[in-house]
């Protein structure tokens, strides 16, 4: 697929295996089993699946936190695995991640200012004054008041924390952001705020998203392309409209049918 900024080719990731001290073999699990995907620049790929289907493992491989057992992941034509080994900073300037648990992804012992400055200094080598300015800019970008910068994470609500998490990802000035269940821990009214913010940022900054969720309605709202994952494999993928209107795979059909209220509303 041309124009893809991020692509995966037959990616496999196994866990476990090998033997214990006394020879009993460890069970081996294939969390991701031959996934090939591509995300065009400036668009959103939604990845849907239930717990344990391997979508988080895939996300971590996309940002270089995990290395694939086999297969290739490329960003801007460069191998993610290669960059992760040789030039982590270059990799993280290209791709960033937003985590599911908004509080868990923020160090409780650091202020927002410190959290947001870390990538500015480490990835972009910015000076102190420039960093301050950029932090203020980032805060306003995610609609947080500037004076919040001196506070600690536990003083924020879930929605606010997730905004900080997004600001941290933006601080690297990446091309791609992998969002791993970014709204599933949030209340619906706040979830809507964050979804709007993400859409807004994409429009303003031309970001590319990989949006991972178990919530079909949310994915349908935000994605251009959708991939369905089931037991480590992508069972169906295609443009949003096609997937939701005309599911091909049995699993996709089952998922759609399981949505409460679906029968009532449609």
């Amino acid at each position, binding site marked *: 697929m041309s124009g893809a900024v991020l692509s995966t080719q037959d990616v496999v990731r196994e866990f476990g295996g090998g033997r*214990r*001290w*006394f020879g*009993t073999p460890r069970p081996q699990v294939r969390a991701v089993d031959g996934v090939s995907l591509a995300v065009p620049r400036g668009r959103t790929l939604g990845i849907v699946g239930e717990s344990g289907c391997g979508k988080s493992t895939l996300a971590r491989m996309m940002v270089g936190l995990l290395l694939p057992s086999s297969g290739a992941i490329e960003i801007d034509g460069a191998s993610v695995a290669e960059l992760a080994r040789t030039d982590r900073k270059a990799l993280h300037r290209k791709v960033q991640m937003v985590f599911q648990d908004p509080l868990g992804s923020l160090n409780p012992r650091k202020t927002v200012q410190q959290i947001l400055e870390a990538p500015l200094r480490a990835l972009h080598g910015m000076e102190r004054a420039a960093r301050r300015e950029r932090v203020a800019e980032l805060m306003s970008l995610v609609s947080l008041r500037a004076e919040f910068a001196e506070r600690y994470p536990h003083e924020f609500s879930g929605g606010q924390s997730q905004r900080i998490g997004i600001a941290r990802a933006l601080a690297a000035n990446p091309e791609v952001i992998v969002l791993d269940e970014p709204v599933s821990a949030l209340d619906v009214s706040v979830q809507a705020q964050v979804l709007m913010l993400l859409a807004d940022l994409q429009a303003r900054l031309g970001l590319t998203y990989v949006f991972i969720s178990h919530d079909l309605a949310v994915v349908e709202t935000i994605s251009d392309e959708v991939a369905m994952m089931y037991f480590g494999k992508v069972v169906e993928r295609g443009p949003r409209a096609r997937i939701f209107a005309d599911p091909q795979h049995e699993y996709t059909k089952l998922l759609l049918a399981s949505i409460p209220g679906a029968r009532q509303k449609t």
Partner: protein
Amino acid sequence: MLNSYILRRLLLIAPVLFGVTIIVFLVISLVPGDPAKAILGTFATPEAVAQVRHDLGLDESLPAQYGIWLFNLLQGDFGRSYILHKPVIVEIMARLFPTLLLAGVALVLSSVFGILLGIVAAVRQNAWPDKVITVAVLIGISTPSFWLGILLIFWFGVRLAWLPVGGMQEMFGGGGVWDVTRHLVLPSCALAAVAGAVLVRLTRGAMLEVMRQDFVRTARAKGLPERRVIFVHAFRNALVGIIPVIGLEAGFVLGGAVYIETVFQWPGIGRMLVSAISTRDILLVQGGVLVIAFAYVLINLLADIAQSLLDPRIRAG
């Protein structure tokens, strides 16, 4: 499933025990002072010293000494004490039972009372029993056990003369269960006090923590009587965290026995070790420390197995 866990656990203690033999050997070999001199007394001739050193194998290199020691050890031969003129294993076996009895009783006392009082304190949190127990526990963990032993001897042995001040049995007509029990009271209490206090704290905290868990609410939602909620649901779960600590307490109690056996003239390994160290009876010290360490490792193994019997999740994982 259960067996594989125990088997794995059993296999895992082999390297630990091997490491233990190395540490025991090294540490004890570093003890200064010449055993030969200790055997021969003050006026030994150099030839006699050389002869004894040869007899003891002390003229070999350290690794060779270790190899010989370990080789004999694996055949159940702990060597011969040149101070006591008998095989080390015989002396240790004679001393092992009293130590295990004292430490075991102290461990049981501290566990039973520690856990019971911990439950009482947790269940009656902030009421008077909790406050009394908390103060007692604070004093318990702040008192040196040897000091407590001396005070107990002074008051209950000498002043009030309720209980014997030392030894394990009467010299005449002694040795029965009642007799040994009477002799056990003071030393086991002195030894159990601190360990018990630690367990009270732990149990209280664990109970309070478990009582807040969702499944306790579920148990209550089922209409179970509070007694069953506390003892069947909450306590058993708290116990999962308490059992390994009881295993650790065993180490505390076995180590503390060194003081208590000295203060109470208890005929156990602890007292034997203190005098064996001072007489440089190297093989006896090595054997004694090794046996205690083995006992401790085994107790912890038992604790782990008990924990796994209680908690199916550990068996599986």
